C-alpha cells in the first residue's frame, strides 16, 4: 500500500512536470505578448519590461519551468500581475467552490443514477428500461450549456425559485446550498445518464453471472440478491470508470461556472487564458490536474474497497 502510494505520488509529480512543461511551451508559442495584453494600450516599454520579468517570460522555457518548481516547493507560485495577490491565494480562493460543486453533482448523480440503472437492469428490454435508457442517453447527450441556460431560465427566471447567479455566501450553508442546486443539477445530468448506463450494463452482466444464480439457488430474497449481492459487483467497475471520467466534469464545470456566474477553477482558467495571464493559467490548470489525479486515486481506492480482488499497486492492464 505504501509502495503503491509512493508510486502514485511519483507519477503525479511526473504528470505535473509534464503539464508545466507543456504550458510553458504553450506560452512560448502562443501569439500575443502577455504584457501588452495585460497592460493595454497605455503601456510604456518599461512597464511591459517589468511585467515580462515578473511573469518570467524573459527567461527560456527551461528556466521558467525550473523557477516555477522552485517556487512551488516554497509554496509560492508568484504574484498575479493584475492584483498583486499571491497566485496561491487566488487559486485557493476559487478551488473550494469547484470541488464542492463537483462533489455535490457527483453525489446527486450517484443518488439518482444508480437507482435508475438498477431499475433498468432489473427488467432489461421492458418499457421502463427503454424509457429510462432513452432518458439517460438524452441526459448524456444534452450539453451542459444548453441544459444550464434552459434550467436557469425556468427555475430562476420564470419561476424565481432559485438564485440566478453566484455561489452564495459560504458562511450561510443554506444560502450556499440554494446557489448550488441548479449548477449541481446541470452538471449532474450528464453524470446521471452516464452512471445509469454504466450501472445498467454492469448490473445486467453481473445478474447473468454464475454466482448470482448460485445465490438465487440458496433461496435469497430478491431484494437481498439485487442490492447486497449484485449491486456491489456492478458498482466497482462503475466507480473505476468514473474516476477517469472526472476529467469530463471539469469541462462541464467551465460551462456551468460561466452560466451560473460561479467563482471556480473553470471561470478562472478561461478568463486567464483570454487575458494571457499565464502564471494563473499554469497554477489553476495544475490545480485542476491535481484534482483529477486525486479523484482518480480515490476512485481506485474505492474500487479496491468495493472489489477485494483488486490489489492496489498491481498494474492494471
Amino acid at each position: 500500500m505504501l509502495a503503491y502510494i509512493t508510486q502514485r505520488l511519483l507519477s503525479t509529480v511526473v504528470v505535473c512536470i509534464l503539464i508545466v512543461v507543456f504550458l510553458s511551451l504553450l506560452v512560448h508559442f502562443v501569439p500575443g505578448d502577455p504584457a501588452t495584453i495585460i497592460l493595454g494600450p497605455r503601456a510604456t516599454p518599461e512597464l511591459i519590461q517589468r511585467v515580462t520579468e515578473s511573469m518570467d517570460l524573459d527567461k527560456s522555457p527551461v528556466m521558467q519551468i525550473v523557477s516555477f518548481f522552485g517556487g512551488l516547493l516554497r509554496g509560492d507560485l508568484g504574484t498575479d500581475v493584475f492584483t498583486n495577490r499571491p497566485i496561491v491565494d487566488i487559486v485557493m480562493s476559487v478551488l473550494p467552490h469547484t470541488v464542492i460543486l463537483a462533489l455535490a453533482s457527483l453525489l446527486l448523480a450517484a443518488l439518482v443514477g444508480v437507482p435508475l440503472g438498477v431499475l433498468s437492469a432489473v427488467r432489461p428490454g421492458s418499457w421502463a428500461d427503454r424509457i429510462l435508457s432513452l432518458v439517460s442517453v438524452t441526459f448524456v447527450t444534452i450539453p451542459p450549456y444548453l441544459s444550464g441556460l434552459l434550467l436557469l431560465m425556468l427555475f430562476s427566471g420564470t419561476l424565481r425559485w432559485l438564485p440566478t447567479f453566484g455561489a452564495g455566501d459560504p458562511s450561510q450553508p443554506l444560502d450556499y446550498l440554494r446557489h448550488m442546486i441548479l449548477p449541481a443539477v446541470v452538471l449532474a445530468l450528464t453524470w446521471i445518464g452516464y452512471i445509469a448506463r454504466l450501472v445498467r450494463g454492469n448490473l445486467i452482466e453481473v445478474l447473468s453471472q454464475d454466482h448470482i444464480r448460485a445465490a438465487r439457488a440458496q433461496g435469497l430474497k430478491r431484494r437481498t440478491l439485487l442490492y447486497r449481492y449484485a449491486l456491489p459487483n456492478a458498482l466497482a467497475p462503475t466507480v473505476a470508470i468514473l474516476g477517469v471520467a472526472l476529467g469530463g466534469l471539469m469541462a462541464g464545470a467551465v460551462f456551468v461556472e460561466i452560466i451560473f456566474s460561479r467563482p471556480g477553477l473553470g471561470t478562472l482558467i478561461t478568463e486567464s487564458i483570454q487575458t494571457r495571464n499565464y502564471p494563473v493559467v499554469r497554477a489553476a490548470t495544475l490545480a485542476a490536474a491535481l484534482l483529477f489525479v486525486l479523484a482518480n486515486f480515490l476512485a481506485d481506492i474505492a474500487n479496491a474497497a468495493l472489489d477485494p480482488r483488486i490489489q492496489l499497486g498491481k498494474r492494471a492492464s
Partner: protein
Amino acid sequence: MAQQVQASETRRVNWIPLADPNWGTGGRIAAVMVAAIVLVAIFAPLLAPYPYDAQDIPNRLQGPSQEYLLGTDQFGRDLLSRVIYGTRIALTTALPAIGLALGAGLVLGLLAGYLGGAIDTVIVLILDTLQAFPGVILALAILALAGPSSLVYVLGLTFIPGYARVIRAQVLSARSQPYVQAQRGLGAGHLRILFGHIFPNVVAPVIVLAAMDIPSVITLEAGLSFLGMGVPPPSPSWGVMLSEGFQYMRQSPWQIIWAGAALVVTTLSITLFGEALRRVLDPRSSNERGGA
C-alpha cells in the same frame, strides 16, 4: 449446449441489411437517422432553400413562415438552411477529429500495449498528462495558440487519450490470448502479429467507441463555438447558433430551438447507433440488448 449453438449462429455480422436481431428497433431507427443525417450533410446544397449566409436584414428574427420555413436569425438568414449546413459543419469537424484521435490513439495504444516496458510507461504518462488537462481548457489554450483553423486538431487531441487507453488495454489483453501465442508459435513476426491479428480485434471496439464519441466531439465543438472559440463566422455551427440564439432568445426563440434540437437529435441518434453497433459487432455483450 443449445444456447451456445444458437449464439454462434447469430454471431455472424450482417452488414448491409439491418437484419441482425442485435440491432433492435431502437438501433434500426437510430441507424436510419444517422444515414439521414449523413445524407443531409452531403446534399446540404440541394436541400437548403437558401445559401446559409444569405442575409435578409429586414426580415430578421422572424418565426417560421412560408418564405422561411423555420424562421430567420439576426441577419435574416434562413434557419432551415443554416441547420442543414450545420449538419455538415458538425460532421466535417467531428469525423476528421475522431479520425485523428483514432489514428494517434491507435499508434500510441498499439506501441504502448505491444511493446510495454519503458515505452509503455512514457506513453501512459503522456496520456495521463493529456487526460489530467480539462478538455475544454486544453482546447481553449491550444485554440489561442494556433487559431480557429486548428479546431479539428484540438478536438482530436482531447480525444486521443481515450482511444490510446482502450487500444492499449485491448492489446494487452489480446497479447496474452492464446491465439497470439499460437502466432508466435507459428513463427510470425511482431508486425504480422500486431497488424494481422491483434489489430483486427482491436478495431471493432474502437470503431464503436468512435461512433459513441462523435456526439461528444460535436458537443465539444458546439461548446467551443458557444465560448466563441469555434468555427469562424458565417459558418452555421450549431454551437454558434445556440450562443447567438440565446442572445436573441427573448425576441425570437427559434434559433435555439432548431439548433438545440438538431444538436440533441444528432448526438442522440449517433449515440444510439453506436450502442446498437456495439451490440452487433460484439455480441458477447449482447446482454445489453433491449436498450432503447
